[in-house]
């Protein structure tokens, strides 16, 4: 049990520490990948986070009706026996978990180089020193984790800009914060001490439901060449269920570090709160606002999502989970039941600008903050007959510069595009390159 707990927590750390940059740069559309993630049409983050874009007419021939990614990367993954050869001695469950959390849709044409990093443990009966080498830089000093908010479906009708419908939503967030002693032990090669607690604080929440929505998006000033578009949506969030954890987990060293069969004792103290499906629904209001200004070849937009989106869950159960060192097992005790609790959806901001420079050249800029860091993307597309050439640059959530480039060819309603994007490992400044391919129907 103890070993599985360590493995589970470690896997969580690794998945949390896996760079999100690749996901930010890559999309299901190779055109956007070739422009470092910038959208020049109404798709992607623009349509998702700026409701005013529902009313802005698409530029001629720019937006595809739909785009189908060609998942060349999956063939590469299926050959990875460390993740799928369950019976082999080199089967690596963490690699498999990484594939599940970060599906490698596209082909890795140049892997991000990894350097050799030895990890050294010096162990005595009453001493323990860990030297992670360069990997110690990976040990985060601040809270780290992963999460996201998704609107899985938006069903409804829109008449003259007014929209009535319902969306299916989910939000998940998992974070860790290493305690001071554990941080020094891992990052600063601080020797382990006797009778000391080494722990990590963790918190997480997952919630899902539907949200009846009313909204409006339309041009409030000007004409099709020069105008201001506004969009606003009001959601009444109905939460079907949620679960949250908040607490600390770690271990306490004994009088001697390595003596007896149990050199360390787990210390776990976690509050678990949840409202199951079937309980009284959670509820709360939230809203989206957006504005787009179009003047000839220029358009500028700003959108904000989930303003004030706080849900009240009237039928929540709260348990306290601890590890009983006497019985050597986890113990759960009920703290409260049928009580009220609250959760919050993170606010997302997006700002963008698109410039049609004439001469078949279009450039775009997008700044996105989803509550977990800011990305800045700049991209440009040059069309030459049926061909399109693309390039872009991005500052990712870890403030590293990444590049994108690509090309495409279009025959009537069909387009075949290829895009390349760089990405970095956590330690090495050297970059890998991923190739995205997709087919678009216009």
């Amino acid at each position, binding site marked *: 049990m103890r070993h599985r707990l*360590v493995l589970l927590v470690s896997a969580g750390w690794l998945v949390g520490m896996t760079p999100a940059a690749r996901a930010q740069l890559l999309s299901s559309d190779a055109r956007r990948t070739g422009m470092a993630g910038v959208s020049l049409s109404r798709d992607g983050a623009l349509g998702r986070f700026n409701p005013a874009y529902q009313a802005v007419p698409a530029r001629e021939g720019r937006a595809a009706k739909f785009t189908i990614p060609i998942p060349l990367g999956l063939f590469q993954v299926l050959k990875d026996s460390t993740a799928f050869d369950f019976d082999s001695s080199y089967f*690596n469950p963490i690699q498999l978990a990484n594939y599940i959390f970060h599906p490698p849709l596209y082909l890795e044409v140049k892997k991000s180089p990894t350097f050799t990093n*030895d990890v050294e443990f010096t162990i005595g009966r009453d001493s323990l020193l860990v030297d992670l080498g360069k990997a110690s830089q990976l040990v985060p000093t601040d809270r780290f984790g992963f999460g996201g908010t998704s609107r899985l479906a938006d069903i409804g009708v829109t008449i003259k800009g007014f929209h009535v419908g319902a969306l299916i939503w989910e939000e998940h967030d998992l974070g860790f914060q290493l305690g001071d002693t554990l941080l020094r032990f891992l990052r600063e090669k601080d020797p382990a001490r006797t009778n000391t607690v080494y722990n990590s604080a963790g918190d997480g929440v997952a919630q899902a439901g539907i949200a009846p929505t009313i909204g409006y998006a339309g041009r409030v000033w000007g004409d099709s060449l020069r105008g201001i578009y506004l969009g606003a949506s009001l959601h009444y969030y109905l939460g079907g269920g949620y679960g949250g954890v908040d607490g600390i987990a770690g271990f306490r060293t004994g009088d001697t570090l390595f003596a007896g069969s149990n050199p360390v004792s787990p210390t776990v103290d976690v509050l678990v709160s949840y409202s199951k499906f079937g309980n009284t629904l959670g509820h709360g209001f939230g809203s989206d606002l957006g504005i787009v200004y179009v003047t000839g070849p220029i358009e500028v937009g700003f959108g904000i999502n989930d303003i004030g989106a706080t849900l009240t869950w009237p039928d929540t159960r709260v348990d306290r989970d601890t590890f009983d060192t006497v019985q050597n097992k986890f113990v759960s005790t009920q703290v409260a039941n049928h009580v009220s609790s609250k959760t919050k959806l993170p606010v997302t901001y997006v700002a963008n600008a698109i410039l049609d420079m004439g001469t078949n050249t279009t450039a775009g800029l997008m700044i996105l903050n989803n509550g977990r860091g800011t990305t800045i993307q700049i991209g440009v597309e040059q069309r030459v007959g049926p061909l399109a050439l693309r390039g872009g640059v991005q500052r990712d959530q870890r403030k590293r510069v990444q590049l994108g480039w690509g090309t495409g060819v279009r025959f009537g309603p069909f387009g075949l595009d290829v895009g390349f994007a760089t990405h970095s490992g956590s330690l090495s400044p050297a970059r890998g390159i991923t190739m995205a391919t997709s087919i678009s129907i216009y």
Partner: protein
Amino acid sequence: MLRTGARMSVTRLTWLAVAAGVMILGCGEGRAIFNVDVLSYEPQLADTVPYAVPGGTSITQVRDSFGLDLPGGLGNSTVDSVSLLYASTVLNAAGGGKVRLEMFFDSTPGNVFSSTVMRADSAVFTGPDTVMLGPISVPLLADSLFTQSKLWVGVRASVVANAGPVMTGRFVTVSVLRLRIIFQDKVF
């Protein structure tokens, strides 16, 4: 002098091995290196053996031996290398001469000092002094003897006294005894 002990239990290291493997997998290619201070588990090995050698003579019978329970699986393919680091300390009280330290390894205690598997180091004294002999690094995977679960270690000091006063002192049988195990990149 014959003793047993220095049992190293690998189960104590399991949770560390898991953590090490996880970190390696998360940080690109790399090896997990364990330096285990065996002496800290068996402090009685740091025994002292006296010697008194008249000037101009020599002795070779200042010796001690002890058993080591080696962790299993050292011959496993995931193990890159294993070495034993050994050192002894000579505390010379009077006289001068040369002290040579020899380490013998065998699977049985009775034959340990006649084993051909040995390592040596030496030091020269001109008067009272404290000198560490070694550390001697012994690559354990170099001989099938070290893939067995039980290993006997014999330590013999040869003292050659210079002409003059009696060379007296003592040596600490074990000053450093570390096991260094290096795992290859893919532990899992």
